[in-house]
């Protein structure tokens, strides 16, 4: 596990013009942290600078009190020296290697090979291990990329919007895999996401990035709902339909892969429209549980 202190400045040529990235982030050991923001806000650049794949104009990266980057002291470790796991948005699997070969390629000299088998089993890749990446679905590729990133047993895992290309069901499954490996391998994980639900489900801490600056940070639920509410039955989702029924409104909300319907009163939803992100809250006393056979 690792504590990470980041302070970075970088001028970027974004689609919308010049972007001044200037961020300050503190990440504690073992946290799963998300960087959330619109596309083009500079999220990927932060991850790339942390991995050493992009140069910063100035700043410093301190991992476990060790400088990975310090523009003052002219230190900049190469990506090879940083010991991180990185999962790319396009998976970046090596097309010339099978799933297993992709994992084996990541082994260090003299490293115990049993980790490859362990990861294949843990990520449920057994049936796929002799296939080439072109024969895999998006979700399968993502699992391989995640497994490959963990072969060297990094302390830090960087995930560059790994789930954006997947459908809701697959995404939810992969979120569980990420949470599983985050805990099992005691990782400090940085995840880029622009899904509120994903952030609330997964993150201990969120940094909201707007125009290259951190505009807010904290616990996801605090950051997204400007005020706390005591309801323990809480989910975030997106409004997909608002229907008027007699004197009430029925609001359909997509939460993960499920639709739920909520009865609302006119004043309550007067400032809401389809597509809005909302928090659905109820008391823990109301829902009933029934075992599925």
């Amino acid at each position, binding site marked *: 596990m690792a504590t990470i202190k980041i302070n970075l400045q970088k001028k970027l040529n974004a689609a919308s013009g010049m972007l001044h990235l200037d961020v300050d982030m503190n990440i504690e050991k073992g946290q799963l942290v998300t960087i959330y923001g619109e596309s083009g806000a500079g999220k990927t650049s932060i991850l790339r600078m942390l991995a050493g794949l992009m140069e910063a104009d100035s700043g410093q990266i301190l991992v476990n009190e060790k400088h990975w980057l310090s523009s003052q002291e002219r230190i900049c470790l190469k990506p090879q020296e940083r010991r991180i796991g990185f999962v790319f948005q396009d998976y970046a699997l090596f097309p010339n290697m099978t799933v297993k070969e992709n994992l084996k390629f990541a082994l260090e000299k003299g490293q115990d090979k049993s980790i490859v088998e362990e990861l294949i089993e843990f990520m449920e890749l057994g049936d796929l291990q002799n296939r080439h990446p072109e024969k895999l679905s998006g979700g399968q590729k993502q699992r391989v990329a995640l497994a490959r990133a963990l072969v060297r047993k990094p302390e830090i895992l960087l995930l560059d919007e790994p789930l954006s290309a997947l459908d809701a069901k697959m995404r939810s499954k992969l979120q569980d895999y990420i949470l599983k490996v985050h805990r099992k391998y005691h990782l400090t994980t940085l995840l880029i996401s622009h899904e509120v639900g994903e952030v609330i489900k997964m993150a201990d801490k969120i940094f909201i990035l707007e125009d290259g600056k951190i505009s807010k940070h904290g616990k996801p639920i605090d950051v997204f709902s400007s005020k706390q509410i*005591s309801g323990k039955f809480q989910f975030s989702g997106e409004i997909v339909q608002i229907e008027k029924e007699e*004197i009430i409104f029925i609001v359909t909300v997509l939460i993960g892969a499920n639709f739920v319907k909520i009865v609302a009163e006119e004043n309550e939803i007067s400032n809401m429209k389809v597509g809005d992100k909302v928090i659905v809250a109820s008391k823990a006393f109301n829902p009933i549980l029934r075992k599925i056979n």
Partner: protein
Amino acid sequence: MNNLRGKIKTIKTHGNISQVKVDLGEVCFCTVIIETPKTASYLKIGNPIQVVFKETEVIIGKGKQEDNSIQNKVEGKIIEMEKGKILSKVIIKTGIGKISSFLTTDSAEILELEIGTQVCAMIQTTEIMLSE
């Protein structure tokens, strides 16, 4: 959604559950929540707080309401009423603010509710949420 403002008067915690009394002026509302002062920063005596509950959880009674288990009661007068085929909505003006309630139109007719009727609004402790 009903929103009433008040101040936290007492907090009784046992394990992960707390019973919180909120002073709303004329009356106190009581709620049971799965939070403790350790897990929720807003749980401090004297803190301003909002009491939140759904219209569907508001029970309406006429006359004296003494022989039931509901702790949170407030009397008031119906100032607005909207009748649908199945559901009806009433807004009650009380000493602690306006409270709206959904009930079946059948019930509204049995109780002979109309604008100006004196009623008692009741909410179960487990149905009340707190919000900053």
